[in-house]
């Protein structure tokens, strides 16, 4: 098996070396990468889309269908994960048995009060959360949230955007869930609205796409007149917010599902 694997890797390496040997020189401003359609985006992207961040312009306007289906892909992944039966069967936990028994009851009963004051327990697992981790996560949480919101809000004029904000918001949800325990973390995203939030990416895209259809006759079309500047901006922001909120909730939910909930 090892020999076979090594042989396969060598074949792959050889093939890739042949491939990269035939590529045009990198970093050359006259290379095909920069003279083909990319040059047109740089020239007319601002005028055609009104977005100063050309990556966002490509993502939301020029290749909007691609992004729409990409949002559908991650939503489908969540549906697939949730469709599987829960990972915890018959009460057996994913954790190694040693880790669970290594916390004797004597310790908790003896110095339970002192420990409760010093260490924040996750009530659901009984595994204590380190003071340092708990403090740092609580301290940084508002800053992380502001950073994610800034990435989202300024995404069309600076580096950033919906997906980046989604990743950071999702990480924040997961970190808070680890530190605060499941019950409190669940309250961050109320159960009633959770299904709608999880589907928010595809929903926002579909709504904006249909609105564009109504206005311009093309699905995901954006009105190009200068007078429709505000409307176009609002459509872009709606899609970005949908991606950010939907993506963040999906990421947090995926993590919960893998924990066995």
């Amino acid at each position, binding site marked *: 098996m090892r020999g076979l694997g090594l042989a396969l890797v060598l074949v792959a390496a050889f093939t890739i070396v042949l491939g990269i040997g035939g590529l045009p020189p990198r970093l050359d*401003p006259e290379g095909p990468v920069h003279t083909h359609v990319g040059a047109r985006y740089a020239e007319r992207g601002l005028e055609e889309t009104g977005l100063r961040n*050309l990556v966002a312009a490509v993502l939301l306007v020029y290749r909007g269908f691609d992004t729409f289906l990409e949002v559908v*892909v991650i939503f489908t*992944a969540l549906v697939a994960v949730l469709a599987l039966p829960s990972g915890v069967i018959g009460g057996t936990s994913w954790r190694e048995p040693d880790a669970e028994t290594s916390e004797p009851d004597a310790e908790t009963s003896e110095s339970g009060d002192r420990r409760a004051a010093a260490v924040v327990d996750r009530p659901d697992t009984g595994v204590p959360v380190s003071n340092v981790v708990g403090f740092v996560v609580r301290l940084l949480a508002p800053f992380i949230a502001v950073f994610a919101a800034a990435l989202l809000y300024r995404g069309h004029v600076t580096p950033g955007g919906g997906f980046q904000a989604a990743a950071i918001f999702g990480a924040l949800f997961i970190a808070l869930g680890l530190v605060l325990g499941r019950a409190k973390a669940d309250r961050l995203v109320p159960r009633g609205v959770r299904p709608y939030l999880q589907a928010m990416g595809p929903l926002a895209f579909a709504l904006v796409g249909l609105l564009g259809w109504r206005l311009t006759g093309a699905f995901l079309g954006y009105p190009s007149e200068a007078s429709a500047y505000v409307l176009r901006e609002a459509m872009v922001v709606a899609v970005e917010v949908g991606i950010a909120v939907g993506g963040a909730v999906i990421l947090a939910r995926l993590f919960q599902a893998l924990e*066995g909930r």
Partner: protein
Amino acid sequence: MELFGFDLDYVAFMILFCIGLHMLVVKSNLLKKLLGLNVMETAVFAFIITSGMVDSGDPPILVAGTNPPFANPIPQAMVLTGIVVAVSVTAVALALIVQIHAHYGTIEVSELKERP
């Protein structure tokens, strides 16, 4: 920078890709296989992003202070798509690995093969 006539960055990504492929093929642990897959994906993303860079270029954001030539925005947008797909694949694969562990009590392929 060049190495034997090949772009050094491309060679680095080729090596990274091969490391991931080796993990994917040789390792028996399903989690390690998944890690290998992610390493391969990272190599591909880095390759695509790098191919769109330009000498003394600016990020493709048209604000005061940035001037042509701009890095190509298309590879960056494509990689963003790719990353989301990679996350989806990883999530589904992890969920399946959890299922396999709950069912068979192991995630080693060598041990799984012996089970009925």
